């Protein structure tokens, strides 16, 4: 398969162990060109480890990883030129300014450093006015933007964002989202891990869920939401309940006089209302749509 036809990322049975602990277990995945793929999972699910195996920060113990058809071990020079990584932890070299950092990173990636390209990138990320400041003097948000600029400086075709908006303010998060969408529209394939489910819900074309190192679901975002589509009814009661009425669906939550219950179909709703009425009067009632968070929780806490 030529690199023109090959998918940006193809994983086959990837395994990574740390001693007896299996961080990534038999993960197979194919990511298509020009999509934003969100990798979700709770802390310790193996998201960062999987990305590390692909980007060269660590080596998988088994399986094959191909980037645009090239093997990440045998053809590492090719694959690393194609890949950009925004790591989870903000890093910066206190010896160099943002402009110098970008020039250096461009050179390390094997591309002749190009001042005009670097300056354009500095402008895109609103860092141009600080181009000659020492990096340690930048604000947290600026350091985070510099991190993204560094990952893009060699024009990668596949971009990994590992928790890109952890700990950043709303405005910067929106800016980064807009940038990610722009990159996708220009043809860059983006894989992001995130704790912010709204980020995946808003940005991603497809979603993969990792649980204990296993990839348990890979699906179009819409299909995933549809498949788990369920409504929730929120009931205001005339008194506080101390225990859930018998026969309620799993996932019901009780908080003082508010009872929230997921359900499917009108039969399900009738059952709920009947069960509740035996214990309390319903004062008010409203419906909620499923959120990705609910789907996510049901997936990662499932059997």
């Amino acid at each position, binding site marked *: 398969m030529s690199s023109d036809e090959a998918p940006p990322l193809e994983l086959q049975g990837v395994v990574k162990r740390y001693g007896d602990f299996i961080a990534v277990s038999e993960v197979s995945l194919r990511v298509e060109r020009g999509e934003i793929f969100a990798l979700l999972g709770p802390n310790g699910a193996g998201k960062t480890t999987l990305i590390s195996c692909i980007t060269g920060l660590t080596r998988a113990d088994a399986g094959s990883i191909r980037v645009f058809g090239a093997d990440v071990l045998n053809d590492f020079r090719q694959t690393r030129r194609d890949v950009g990584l925004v790591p989870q932890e903000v890093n910066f070299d206190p010896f160099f300014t943002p402009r110098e950092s970008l020039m250096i*990173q461009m050179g390390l990636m094997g591309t002749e450093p190009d001042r005009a390209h670097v300056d354009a990138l500095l402008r895109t990320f609103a860092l141009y006015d600080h181009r000659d400041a020492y990096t340690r003097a930048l604000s947290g948000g600026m350091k985070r933007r510099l991190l993204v600029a560094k990952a893009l400086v060699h024009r990668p075709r596949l971009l990994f964002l590992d928790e890109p908006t952890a700990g950043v303010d709303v405005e910067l998060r929106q800016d980064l989202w807009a940038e990610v969408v722009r990159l996708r529209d220009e043809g860059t394939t983006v894989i992001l891990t995130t704790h912010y489910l709204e980020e995946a819900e808003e940005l991603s074309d497809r979603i993969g869920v990792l649980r204990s190192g296993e990839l348990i679901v890979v699906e179009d975002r819409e299909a995933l939401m549809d498949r788990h589509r369920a409504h929730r009814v929120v009931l205001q009661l005339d008194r506080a309940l101390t225990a859930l009425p018998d026969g309620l669906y799993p996932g019901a939550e009780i908080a003082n006089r508010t009872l929230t219950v997921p359900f499917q179909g009108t039969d399900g709703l009738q059952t709920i209302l009947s069960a509740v009425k035996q214990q309390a009067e319903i004062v008010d009632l409203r419906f909620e749509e499923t959120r990705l968070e609910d789907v996510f929780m049901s997936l990662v806490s499932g059997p």
Partner: protein
Amino acid sequence: MNAVGTRTLLGKEIRRFSKVWLQTVLSPLVTTSLYFLVFGVALGARLDRIDGVPYIEYVIPGLVMLAMISNAFLNSSSSLFQSKVNGTSVDMMVAPLGPSEILFAYVSASVLRGHAVGLMVWLVATLFVGPRVENLLWTLSFSFVVTVIFGAFGVLVATWAQKFDHLAVVPNFVLTPLTFLGGVFYSVDMLPDLWSTVSRFNPVFYMVNGLRFGMLGISDVNPALSLGILLVLALFILWGAKRSIADGARLRL
């Protein structure tokens, strides 16, 4: 091969120590010059000649070697360890650079800083005794192989270290004893037989005597033997350092 990447990494390392030249270049020059003033000028006048050379001249190659060893080691070890601590080693690890290229860049920067400081120490010494280099080729052969050894050793230690304490252990408990007992300030022939024999297991002994042969034409040991031993040591340490870089886990904390 990633020639642009290797060149960039080397350039980055050179700029790193050039930017803080007061600390990386001038400070060792002051320290070594003080050694020279105390041991060479003040005490040297009261000491006999060694192998026909006045003590003040005899001590110069040892002091130059002392400066080159510590600076070559400190350059690679502190730079690489700092990049582990601040997380920027990731930038290098995701780049299309092989372990040999990374090692080449770090060791070359160490070789350059070692020679920059060594040259300045030598220049200061010439103010007192005039310039003297008996054999430039031997001199440069030893200065080169020694800075390669300690540049690679610095990489090895930085990849092994998990905290700053680990990094300080080596200069304090390994380098300083080895250099002071390696004949920097004396000829090992002046020691009792037992200690003279023990000294021959110290690699710094061959380094100091090699440079002394190049600069002054005298040595406690055949310089070809010294160079042979140091070349084997260099290959061994380079091999270890390359393996350590290839094991990417050692480049991150």
